[in-house]
């Protein structure tokens, strides 16, 4: 049986074979299987050296210093460490947080939990293109704001936020630390952690051809203006690894995979981005020709790997069911039970429930071909036409 065409790279990517090979070298007796924290013998030293080399690779790929990289189990843990860590450490300074309605659940859910514990959270609404304007952040800051959390690249619509301007506003405020969820960014756009002026940044390996189960939180060691460098309260204890911020044995094979994946992403030539951008345009032109196709997110401000489209006159669950045998894409609805709910991201952009549900997110990647794109246009076109005929639209 033919596998469906994979166009869900924004959900996850396959591990690059070179990454997989490097990871397997850290698992068995012949490889570097030692505990990287075991300083008493050569096995530990060798594993520790690999961990530090991977740390340097990750740091170099995002413009950070190795000392700023804290390994985590993924971007979700990094987001949690950043949000709860700042909230806990600065709880006597203030209990107000600013974030956006279009953030990933890994940011929104911790914020909601903090609300339950007494913090106040301001949720910014983006414009119809999904952009949070820096002056919105400035207007939302209060004297006791301790954290601003704004993502870099949105996972559903691919829109890039103006992080450096937001960072400048936070630095001017003095008390507000800036956390950026950059889980979708590596391999899609250039990141310079130091130049952006961000305090905390969450990273994920599996969105960039690395393994699942590993990520990092970048913790800036630089102050911002008159403000001292950011501090975090640890959330887990038991060994003091990662400078006490994230206790637990570091998974050598995982971080080695992440390090190499990030190094490969950094080495990817600009032509690859242009290739993907051309395919996304080909996809959009093909879908637009169906009629009643609405592009979600500001096309001028989005990464080339993501295209999100709503289809008029089509019900979302049926659309996904009609294409799923031939196409692996994400729907704009969240399936938390048998009943699907409209995408909260698209709702925040002002789309109504029906259009929010009837959207598909196409995630393009390293292995996407023009043939995949043409297949996608054909499959979606057939499904949309049939469903419109069935509904009399």
């Amino acid at each position: 049986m033919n596998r469906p065409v994979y166009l869900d790279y924004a959900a996850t990517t396959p591990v690059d074979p070179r990454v997989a090979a490097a990871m397997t070298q850290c698992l068995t007796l012949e490889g570097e299987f030692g505990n990287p924290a075991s300083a008493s013998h050569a096995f530990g030293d060798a594993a520790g050296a690999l961990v530090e080399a991977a740390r340097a690779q990750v740091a170099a790929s995002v413009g950070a210093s190795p000392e700023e990289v804290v390994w985590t189990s993924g971007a979700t843990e990094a987001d949690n460490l950043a949000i709860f860590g700042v909230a806990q450490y600065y709880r006597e300074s203030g209990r107000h947080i600013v974030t956006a309605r279009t953030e990933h659940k890994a940011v929104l859910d911790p914020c909601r939990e903090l609300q339950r514990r007494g913090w106040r959270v301001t949720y910014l609404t983006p414009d119809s293109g999904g952009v949070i304007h820096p002056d919105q952040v400035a207007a939302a800051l209060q004297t006791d704001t301790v954290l601003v959390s704004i993502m870099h690249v949105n996972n559903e619509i691919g829109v890039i936020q103006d992080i450096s301007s937001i960072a400048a506003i936070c630095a001017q405020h003095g008390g507000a630390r800036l956390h950026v969820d950059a889980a979708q960014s590596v391999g899609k756009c250039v990141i310079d952690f130091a130049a952006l002026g961000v305090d905390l940044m969450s990273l994920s390996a599996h969105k960039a051809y690395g393994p699942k189960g590993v990520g990092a939180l970048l913790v800036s060691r630089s102050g911002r203006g008159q403000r001292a460098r950011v501090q975090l309260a640890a959330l887990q204890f038991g060994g003091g690894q990662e400078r006490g911020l994230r206790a637990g044995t570091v998974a050598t094979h995982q971080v080695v995979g992440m390090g190499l994946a990030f190094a490969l992403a950094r080495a990817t030539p600009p032509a690859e981005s242009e290739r993907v951008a051309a395919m996304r345009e080909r996809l959009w032109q093909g879908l637009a020709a169906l009629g009643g196709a609405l592009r979600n997110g500001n096309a001028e401000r989005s990464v080339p790997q993501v295209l999100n489209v709503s289809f008029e006159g089509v019900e979302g669950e049926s659309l996904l069911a009609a294409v799923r045998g031939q196409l692996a894409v994400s729907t704009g609805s969240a399936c938390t039970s048998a009943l699907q709910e409209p995408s909260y991201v698209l709702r925040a952009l002002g789309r109504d429930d029906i259009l929010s549900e009837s959207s598909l997110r196409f995630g393009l990647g390293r292995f996407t071909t023009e043939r995949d794109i043409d297949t996608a246009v054909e499959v979606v076109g057939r499904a949309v036409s049939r469903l419109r005929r069935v509904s009399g639209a």
Partner: protein
Amino acid sequence: VTYSELTLHYFETAAGAGVLRGPGTCRGAAGSRTQGTWVQFDVQPGSGSIQAARFLAFGCPHTIAVSAWVVEQAIGRPVRAALPESVQELSGRFAVPIEKRGRLLIIEDAWVAALTVAMQR
């Protein structure tokens, strides 16, 4: 969401989709596109039984599949304001999750509305 083979079959074929035209056509609809589920049935009665039936459905695969099955089963049946099977039976036949049973009630409302018109003629 996973679907039974029967649901997928009727969802994918949707053989009775469309509208009927002519003076003998009786139409009933229920639900709302803006609410996510809308169903319309056209039936043509004759000699006390249903001669032809079509449906239009904006909704999930279960909604489309059950609507398609209803019009297929209706042909030749007596004109009476009831589905060929109860909502409960349809729910079991198509393995409709309990959260979606309300959509079967919309199908029932649309069908009963069309057949009520037919019975009044």
